[in-house]
């Protein structure tokens, strides 16, 4: 049973076609790694899945609901799909605790005590319970990204989207974020991860995809993808990145 289905998704920015017909599906509990050179449309694609970008043609069905202009559907899907950004995008005027409880209180309509309990639980899971009362500006990049993951998890999403979560981090901090993501993958979360961390892809991915120029070039298991790629484009990409 696939939780995300896309059919021939196309998207233009002005005259530039960013997505040239992407068809794929993701099964529940699957970890999918999407890689590709910059400008290949991989970020655009996962941003289409929770409609931060609108696709112009094709069909995206998330958890049985098709993405259309209906605002109610979009809000329903967004609360089922967690998203982690490259630049963290924590709310700088709120404490870490408030960042995590905000959506629980206002979107899920939980009471404060309950959501704070949940937030502490999540902060312990990502390993920074002692930072709860600090502001995002007082944390390191790795800690901020872990807070961002906790914030997304607080909504108890069925799917997590990661848009280059480690690209803005120091090499030393990448590991702490990846560890959290690995733990999350092992717990059975459905994940789509846009990343250049090939080690992560080898270790936890169920499937790896390569995007180039708005098209899905290769879709394969990690072993096949890294050892025995089908297309020449993949070979070129791997030779440059490894």
């Amino acid at each position, binding site marked *: 049973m696939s939780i995300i289905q896309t059919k021939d998704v196309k998207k233009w920015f002005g005259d530039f076609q960013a997505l040239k017909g992407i068809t794929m599906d993701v099964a529940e509990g699957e970890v999918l790694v999407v890689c590709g050179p910059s400008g290949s449309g991989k970020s655009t694609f996962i941003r289409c899945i929770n409609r931060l970008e609108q696709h112009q043609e094709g069909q995206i069905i998330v958890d049985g609901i098709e993405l259309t202009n209906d605002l109610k559907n979009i809000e329903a899907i967004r609360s089922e799909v967690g998203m982690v950004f490259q630049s963290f995008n924590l709310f700088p005027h709120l404490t870490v605790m408030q960042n995590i409880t905000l*959506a629980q209180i206002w*979107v899920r309509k939980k009471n404060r005590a309950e959501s704070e309990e949940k937030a502490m639980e999540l902060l312990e899971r990502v390993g920074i319970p002692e930072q709860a009362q600090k502001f995002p*500006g007082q944390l390191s990049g790795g800690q901020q990204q872990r807070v961002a993951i906790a914030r997304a998890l607080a*909504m108890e999403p069925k799917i997590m989207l990661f848009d280059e979560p480690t690209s803005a981090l120091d090499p030393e901090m990448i590991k702490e974020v990846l560890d959290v993501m690995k733990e999350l993958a092992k717990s059975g979360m459905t994940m789509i991860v846009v990343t250049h961390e090939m080690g992560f892809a080898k270790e936890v991915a169920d499937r790896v995809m390569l995007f180039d120029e708005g098209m899905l070039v290769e879709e394969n298991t990690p072993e096949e993808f890294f050892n025995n790629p089908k297309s020449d484009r993949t070979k070129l990409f791997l030779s440059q990145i490894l």
Partner: protein
Amino acid sequence: MVDLIKKNAKSLQESLFSSVGSAVLTIATTYLVINFFRGMLGFALTSDKDWLAVLNNMQLYMVQAYPEEDFIRVWLSVGLTFVLAGLSIGIWRSDDRVKSSQVFNSFFKGGLGVLFFTIIAPTNASFMGNDGSVITEEVFSMDTRLGILIPVAVFCVIFFSIRFTNVKFTVNSSDMVFFYLFIPVALLWFVKLPTIQLDQNNERIIPDPVMPIADTTKIPWTVIFVSFLLSYFIGMYLKNIKSIKSIMSLSWFLLPLLIFSWIFKKPQIDMSVVLGSDLPIFGVFLLWGFLVITFVNNSIFKKYYSTYLGVTFLLTLVGVFSGLPMLAKTCLLLIALFSVVVPAVSTSSQGKRSLLIVWAVALVTLTFLLRGGASDTGIVVPGSSIFGGFSLTWLLAIFGTYVSFPLGVLLALGRNSKLPIIRIVCTGIIELTRSVPYITWLFFASVTLAVFLPAGVEFNLIVRVLMVTAFFSGAYFAENIRGGLQSIPKGQYEAADAIGMSPFQKISLIIMPQALRAVIPTLVSSAITAFKDSSLVTIIGLFDFLTIGKTVIGNQSIPVNFVGHDRENLIFVAIVYWIFTFTLSRRSMKVEKKLGLGER
């Protein structure tokens, strides 16, 4: 101690005389500053300046022609404000502690300031006599100078050296407010001021006898201080009650409305109007809101909710321009806005219950305030308005900011809206109001506005002035806030979207708080401008604070002749304006510092 002096001397040398150029600059500037203050003091101390022109007219300055038998209303207004302030300070009592050395240091610095002025004050000053000749006289004798110099110097030495003793303690910074306020209140009971007295022929007795301050001044202030202190303790006691802070914020919002509609104004209530019109309208709208809340989740009603909203807005639009009573119009507007919010909030039965309470309380408050505001006033004064002097300036400043700030927020959001009609209307309002001078708008309010209003709709001159002021400063606020909105990175919008927030939640919880704190300095300077610009209402015949000083007192000849003494009054007015604006800008700096906590 010697080391300390050496260290200070060294840093002084480094900062003031580091090079030849800076030494020259330092000396030249010091010379200019000293001469400026010498000139000012000389001007203030000469015998042709009659400072009693200010002191004797304090009542006129504050409330203009407000009748004396109703002064209890003015005191009540002031007292209520202080009680609320005391409660708030108690509730928001900070844990910051001020060190004794800091307090002593500020006393020491204050003493140094007095010393400075005593030393530089000129012994002789000249002024122009009535016949055009220059008269030079002694204004500050050596005896007076020494009489001030010696005690103040002793005071300074004590507070300087106390830092090197073992007297060390800390005081809660909130408690200090009461100490500082206690000083002037206590002084009221001891200070004697020169007072104007008239003889049998109704002529001024010169020299003016020195008298203690009148009971009608010191007793109310003492009572106010005591209730301020009491409410501070009550506030500390109430601190832990849930939602007390939101109740306090709401009270601050309602306080000016209450003061201006019920306390200051003495409304004359016609019971037949209240029973025949107010209560039925109140009942109808209470029921209306009640029905909307109850049936909002009903499936049939839900289907036609957008139709219902459209009809309500249409009714409101028609209602506003019809001959309905004011209360009905306002209630219509309120129910239209309320209906927009209801579906988002009343999802649970708990939400419904609190929404019902909110609706009932809002309606009661509205009816109460509107009845007070719309009734005729029982206070009879010469001129067009019971507000005059500082009370008018204050009214314009508070309501100017009050109405224009939310309006500015809405206009800024509207200008950024994706809907073309809203965007065009908002941009139009902003550009139209900003491109016309404020004075033109004031004339518009006093002369032209009545022509545009439908027949039978009439507003008091002050209300009309408030309307144009709201739009005028609202347009400026809107542009400032728009600047703040543009400084918010796109990622913040996306992050809010990604956790499933509705557009309303996104704006009110994520975007606005950040945008507003980014533009606090410009918002405060807009508020200061609005405060000062309120003095322009003199041009349409209202008597604000400045007009009292410049024109009214400047032409006063009965019972005492103050003609020609407007310079003293202008200086006084300038100082009062300065105190208020300076306090405002200092407060805003503190707020900025506090809000900037999390950001680096």
